[in-house]
């Protein structure tokens, strides 16, 4: 399966990376002068994230915003299965690669697009950022603490999830063509709607019952005790949904708070200040993996709160080979593999900008003379590293 990724933001970048990790031939088309074809960045990407998103892809330089560059791209699309992009409302047209034009070149091409609010509707061309998408899609209103501003989910999560949808739409579309169910199609994904899926329960609960999720109270929290607690060697997430309080309190070493009236959620909240010192002292008495293992035996769903180092070093990640090594500049660092085993090779390296330009054009049947002409006119060429913001 051949995939063309039009260099834009991290949504298409993530989608392309997933497809590369699945073993597909992903060619990222970048402007010869670096940067991306996206007019406005909607999230800040650092060097490490950029390397994570570039791994496993071939990179070709092609100035799509010229007549000859756009024509060359359409030629590439003629031999491709998929185009993915996140240039936003009017973005494809802006680089001379409207879906109508691509479809004329290749009736079975699957084009997957994402944009903050989708390509249609009254808000299609609104300004957005990662935070804006997360806020409008929900979750921000229920994350954090009552009376304080809601909090976003870390990083470029909404963009990445939109990228996951792009990769999925690409594969679904290709399978539709192969199975003879559909011809090529243009599938567009609204980041806002994709993000709403992760909070859909609360949106729908309001329709059924007139209420949804609210932010936590500081202190005892929603379940009668704080979920985030320091143990002897790190943070632990304490979760035991629907657990009977009495055995749970005994398990936590809170025997004196096991019986009435302490087994009532309201009492736990109202008199949390009396329980808290004992709760924290008890949790701090053992390492977190010890708590985690013992809780699992009881059916409680505790979990270690891993940081960016512990998540790599955890015995489970090690046993599953969840990470691989990626070269970033002079250093080698771990990055996550797909969350499931894939027969595809590991993606250990990042190609240089424009490294595969000539190969990609040749594969599409462009003559050496035409390739030379494009280079001479500045429509292709080796570019500097793309718009990395540090």
């Amino acid at each position, binding site marked *: *399966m051949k995939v063309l990724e039009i260099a834009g933001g991290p949504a298409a970048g993530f989608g392309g990376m997933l497809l590369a990790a699945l073993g597909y031939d992903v060619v990222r088309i970048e402007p010869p002068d670096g940067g991306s074809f996206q007019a406005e960045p909607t999230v*800040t990407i650092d*060097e*490490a*994230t950029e390397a994570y998103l570039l791994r496993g892809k071939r990179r070709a330089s092609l100035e799509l915003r010229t007549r000859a560059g756009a024509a060359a791209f359409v030629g590439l699309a003629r031999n491709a299965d998929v185009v993915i992009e996140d240039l936003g409302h009017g973005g494809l047209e802006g680089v001379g690669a409207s879906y109508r034009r691509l479809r004329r070149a290749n009736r079975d091409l699957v084009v997957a697009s994402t944009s903050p609010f*989708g390509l249609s509707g*009254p808000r299609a061309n609104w*300004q*957005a950022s*990662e935070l804006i998408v*997360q*806020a409008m899609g929900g979750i921000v*209103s*229920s*994350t954090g603490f009552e009376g304080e501003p809601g*909090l976003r*989910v*870390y990083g470029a999560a909404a963009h990445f*999830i939109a990228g996951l*949808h792009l*990769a999925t739409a690409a594969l*679904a579309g290709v*399978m539709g063509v192969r199975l003879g169910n559909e011809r090529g199609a*243009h599938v567009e994904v609204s980041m806002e*709607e*994709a993000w709403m*899926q*992760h*909070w*859909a*329960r609360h*949106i*729908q609960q*309001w*329709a*059924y019952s*007139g*209420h*949804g*999720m609210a932010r936590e109270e500081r202190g005892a929290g929603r379940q009668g005790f704080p*979920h985030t607690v320091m143990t002897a060697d790190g943070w632990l*997430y304490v*979760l035991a*949904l629907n657990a009977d309080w009495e055995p749970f309190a005994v398990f936590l070493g809170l025997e004196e708070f096991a019986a009435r009236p302490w087994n009532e959620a309201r009492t736990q909240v109202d008199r949390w200040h009396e329980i808290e010192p004992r709760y924290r002292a008890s949790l701090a008495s053992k390492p977190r993996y010890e708590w985690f293992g013992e809780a699992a035996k009881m059916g409680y769903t505790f*979990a270690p*709160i*891993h940081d*960016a*180092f512990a*998540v*790599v070093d955890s*015995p*489970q990640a090690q046993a*599953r080979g*969840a990470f691989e090594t990626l070269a970033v500049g002079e*250093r080698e660092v771990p990055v*996550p593999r797909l*969350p*499931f*085993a894939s027969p595809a090779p590991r993606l250990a390296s990042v190609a240089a900008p424009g490294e595969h330009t000539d190969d990609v054009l040749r594969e599409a049947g462009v003559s050496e003379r035409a390739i030379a002409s494009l280079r001479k006119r500045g429509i292709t060429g080796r570019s500097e590293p793309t718009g990395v913001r540090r």
Partner: protein
Amino acid sequence: MPRRPYRPLRGIRVLSFEIAFSLPSGTRTLAELGAEVVRVAGPARPAGTYIAVIDGVFLSKPCVGINLRNEEGRAIARDLVAQADIVCHNFTPNVMAGFGLSPEDLLAIKPDLIVLQLTGYGTPGPWAAYPAYGPSTEAAGGLNSLMGNESDEPVRIGSGVFADQLSGRFATLAILAALERRQRTGKGEVIDLSMTESITTLLGGAIAGAHLNGRAPERPGNRDACFAPQGVYPCRGDDQWIAISVEDDAQWAALAQLSGLEDFTGPELKTAEGRRREPDDIDATLAAWTTQFDKDALTSTLQTKGIAAGPVRRPEDSHFDQHLAARGAFQRVEHEAPIIGYMAHPHLANPWIADGFERAKLSDFRFTGADNRRVLKRWLGTPVAEVRRLAKEGALLDVGELLVGDRNPPPGTKVDADAGERLGLARDTRS
């Protein structure tokens, strides 16, 4: 608009032994893409029904009830497996193995089968059998440690199903990739998917960066490395907020002019670098200004000036959003019998629009065994009388219609008793 939905997976059969909520979100996507997804349910758990219905992940899937503790029940399951392209489950692995339905057992029934198992921590590994809910895997996957403000303890996501939805979407991706491979090779395969690792894929840059820099990233709260200011600011009304991202200096100039705030006119604030030096002061001034306005009105004003802004949506807000309505983001799912007094409720559809097609129509939640006759006839050619006998002898389960009761909210929760009226939902007229 064309008159049919986009159905690239028509003809693909999926048999899903699934419980809430991770895998079902992925198989629902497959169903919306035209695959025939059959949910296999065991004994119903009435306590879970309310959440199962409102969550929506079980929509658009017929349901067969099979008692896997019964030998005939297991035989039916094996017969259905033989007719499927994909079999998936989200139990801990020993559960399915205990019923003779381990991945090896399943591939022995049908060698070109695609088998997917989804668990909290994945298999193999020392935590393979540990129980987990989505929020546990968000913590273990590294997300909580990066959430919150710098001075805070790690913060959890206020969703409860974030990791469930994410791993479900990865399940869809993994299944489609396996189908594509099978089409080329003719071979089946086993996919083992970890919810925790699904979360970790979102953090690849942070993890790589931490190892490059030798220190874990700080919790940034709502701030951004470049956009300044960026945050969530109060608006008029109870718990009403707006998110604002000033993405460049031109947007800042527009904001300074619009707000008329003298504090924002200083030359040192003309660049993002300057503004990042005084984030707390800027946030406090901005918050004092935004608090006078309605969040939607202020959003419109800011967007008109080219400033990235949006209301922080509460659960009810999206239902009344004209943009989402224009795109058909919600569908009214009609119930066979009323649920909490109404004959239909709105649910979110898959967030894709295929140009020239309509979105797939969602069908209602099906109770355990509601489709025994239809599915067994269609997949196995089993006569109705035989289905009746199998149910009578305990191999098949059919709980009939369960009453879905309303759930009491946590103490102190504000309840909008008029939600149904505001949405214009059709009332139960039977009583």
